[in-house]
């Protein structure tokens, strides 16, 4: 029972943070709302019993990546965003696409409403050792390839940011 209550609380905070992220005018407020979203996601992971993933979510996303966001916003001293009248493409193309996407998701969810499997709360309560075995034995190649991908992205950023001599 207490799990369901906590799930509703943190799920609600997560959705509210995401909405606030879109509605706030000031970039700092938006970035802080994103941190709230990350934090409540970590709480949802904890409810599933995935302690390691929850801790890493806080350290990497809420701690490291969002600090960079907040710093860039503070140092650039970005002001309030200005509202344009909206582009015509977004009006004619974007709204129907979002509606189609939402309809598709709803359709699939309703179609598969009566599934015979369900994720239990606390279903992923496994020791950290098992995460390590999955990452460094079973899925070692995808894991290492992902890190190469990130390296390529860093190099790309350096090349783009470098000034031509």
């Amino acid at each position: 029972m207490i799990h369901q209550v906590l799930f509703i609380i943190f799920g609600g905070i997560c959705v509210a943070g995401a909405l606030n992220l879109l509605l706030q005018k000031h970039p700092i407020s938006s970035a802080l709302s994103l941190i709230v979203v990350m934090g409540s996601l970590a709480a949802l992971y904890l409810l599933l019993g995935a302690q390691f993933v929850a801790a890493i979510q806080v350290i990497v996303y809420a701690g490291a990546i969002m600090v960079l966001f907040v710093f860039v916003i503070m140092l650039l001293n970005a002001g309030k965003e200005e509202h344009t009248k909206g582009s015509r493409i977004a009006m004619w193309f974007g709204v129907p696409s979002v509606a189609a996407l939402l309809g598709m998701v709803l359709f699939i969810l309703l179609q598969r409403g009566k599934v015979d499997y369900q994720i239990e709360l606390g279903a992923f309560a496994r020791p950290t050792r098992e995460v390590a075995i999955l990452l460094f034995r079973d899925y070692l190649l995808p894991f290492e390839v992902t890190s190469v991908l990130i390296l390529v992205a860093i190099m790309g950023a350096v090349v783009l940011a470098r000034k031509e001599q």
Partner: protein
Amino acid sequence: MTLTPELKDALLFVAIIVVKILVITHVLLGACAYTVWLERKLIGRMQNRWGPTRVGWFGLLQPLADALKFIVKEDLLPPGVNRPLFLLAPLLAVALGLTSLAVIPFGETVTIAGHTEALQISGMTDPNGGGNAPIFDPNVGLLIILGVTSIGVYAIALSGWSSNSKYSLLGSLRASAQMISYELALGLSLVGVVMLGSSLSLREIVNGQAAPAAATGWHQIGFLHWNFFSGFQFVAFFIYLTAAFAETNRIPFDLPEAETELVAGYHTEYSAMKFAMFFIAEYANMFTAASIATLLFLGGWHSPFEGLSFIPSLPLPAIVAAFVPTFWFVLKIAFFIFFYIWVRGTLPRFRYDQLMGFGWKILLPASIANIIVTSAIVAWRAAP
């Protein structure tokens, strides 16, 4: 209304958690207040002064007077600040400073009126299992503390930015850059301990440092099993200690609040209780850093003389005996607190480029070298 046994158990569970949180938080806040007194006294003696002497014997009531002053002072809100963030920052600082306490274990179990409870806010044990029931605690306790520390950067960054003052902004930028840089060395210096304990749970890491029951000869001596000695983690210990000084913004790394350059750094614009909250957060962080050093390197609540059978055990009542491990834990923390103050009375402040150079060019490579050496030791010990 009658209570079903399940509901009764659930209510008892919540009540005990609340009592644990209240007791531990208040002990910590009291300890913070008296650490300030101890710091003023000790620094005074080191500089050939008396320190506080007027309020109470030896100035012992000085913390109470300070608290009263903080409460009754005018609470200024300077014009031009970003109001919601300006108010959020000190709250965040003190809340995160106290959050780490939830996972810190400070002893085994205590049995009161047939009810056994773990000496840790987030520790669980069978209430009817007696003194030897197994204790479950978060199996990533160490990561939770590191996570809370990494969120702590926001309190400082936001306080400086929302104050709309150049001293605050400079101080908060310095603090954030310093905390992010030293977090790397701090995190990496703990990897060796995690490998030796093969766990991220603070309680399991401490249990791995106890003298085995079947030990003979010099293996009986308790403190030789601490990670500092038996795990060859003294390099990691000094890296951790240095990084912890930087993380808590203490001298010699107190550039974020360097009085001679920045007035008071990121909390320049704060007054009254909001200023006190930053102060409490700083001291709570000192206690967390000292607890981690104790738990990971110095055997946690284990006595240094554990396992030496020729030392007679005192005939203590069971309720007092349950808190003997806590006594050792507190003693070790008190040593670190004294060490913080001692260093403050001894060393001058670093220059900012020296601080960054030291963190990135010396501490970070040293902590990586420590990981390599420790993994070699672990592999050698595991070899058949």
